[in-house]
């Protein structure tokens, strides 16, 4: 290979650089997993913790379509509760502290949902 040494060296440097996040986290301790405090006054969310952890964003999107575009405001959860499909009035009624609950995981995963540009978070939870 013409200039083989330089090419192989370049590829090696490139691989190291581009895989930096992977080997860095493997070698050095990463940021601690966030521990979210669950609310105390309600035992049951609109669905199981596993489902909510994986799909709460989809649940909220479905609620949004139902309330805004179809005018349907309440729903029956898989657990049998009738709830108002509202971020502010249902979800944040229990998960009232946005910083401790929502932001803890979102910041860890570098996710910035735009919900709170419009939807008002409960008083006392700083963003």
């Amino acid at each position, binding site marked *: 290979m013409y200039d083989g040494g330089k090419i192989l060296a370049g590829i090696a440097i490139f691989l190291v650089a581009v895989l930096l996040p992977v080997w860095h986290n493997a070698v050095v301790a990463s940021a601690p997993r966030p521990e979210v405090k669950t609310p105390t006054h309600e035992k049951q969310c609109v669905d199981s913790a596993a489902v909510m952890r994986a799909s709460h964003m989809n649940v909220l999107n479905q609620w*949004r379509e139902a309330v*805004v575009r179809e*005018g349907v405001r309440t729903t029956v959860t898989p657990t049998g509760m009738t709830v108002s499909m509202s971020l*502010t009035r249902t979800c944040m009624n229990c998960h009232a502290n946005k910083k401790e609950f929502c932001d803890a995981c979102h910041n860890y995963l570098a996710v910035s949902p735009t919900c709170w540009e*419009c939807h*008002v978070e409960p*008083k006392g939870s700083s963003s």
Partner: protein
Amino acid sequence: MKAGRRSFLKNAGLGALGLAASKAFPTNAEGAAAGGGPRWAMLIDTRKCLQEKGCAKCAEACHLAHNVPTLPNPRHAVKWIWKENFREAFPDQEAEYFDEVLTSSKMLVFCNHCDKPPCTRVCPTQATWRRGDGVVMMDWHRCIGCRYCVAACPYGSRSFNWVDPRPHLANITPTYPTRTRGVVEKCTFCEERLPEHRPPACVEACEARAMMFGDLADPTSEIREVLRTRFAVRRRPGLGTHPEIFYLV
């Protein structure tokens, strides 16, 4: 004679308005016309409104309930309901020799929730559309802020958020969202109150009882009764938009 009939009708209207709250929301079973649900509309008695000079209780109630901001720059104003000069609210009513009490005063204006809205026709993302019950609705998640609907509205009912509205909200009502910069907004007939059988915030706040909210699909509703017995004008009906806000003048 004329005075007697007019004052009788006015009193009948007043009494009817007093009962309006309970009768304004028939369920489908009760009073909806064959072929569907309610068809919401509003009636404004301009003479009653004019009795309270300088009153803005309807606008204050609406703007508070819906987190409508007060912008320092009038060019960026966001307003859902406000008062316009008679000539500007009703440009096709030549008003030279009419009653000056009326023509020199300000009329209450807001979205007409037209039956054939030109604004919903032009929206490229269906962020605004006409519901079956007549409410011309907004989806602030989908609006791309192109302002085509603002260009299409013949009544100037729509406002665009030129800047972030949050810093310009003195009191935030937490149960209703604010909007973000870059979307168009307007009166939504308090559609969040309708399922709770509550009248719109403006109707509730009006101390002169000048505003009536009702179901046109119910032939026995108060608003239908008043429309049958009194002559009401609408804004720019010749454009074919079928506006559903009626004004008793």
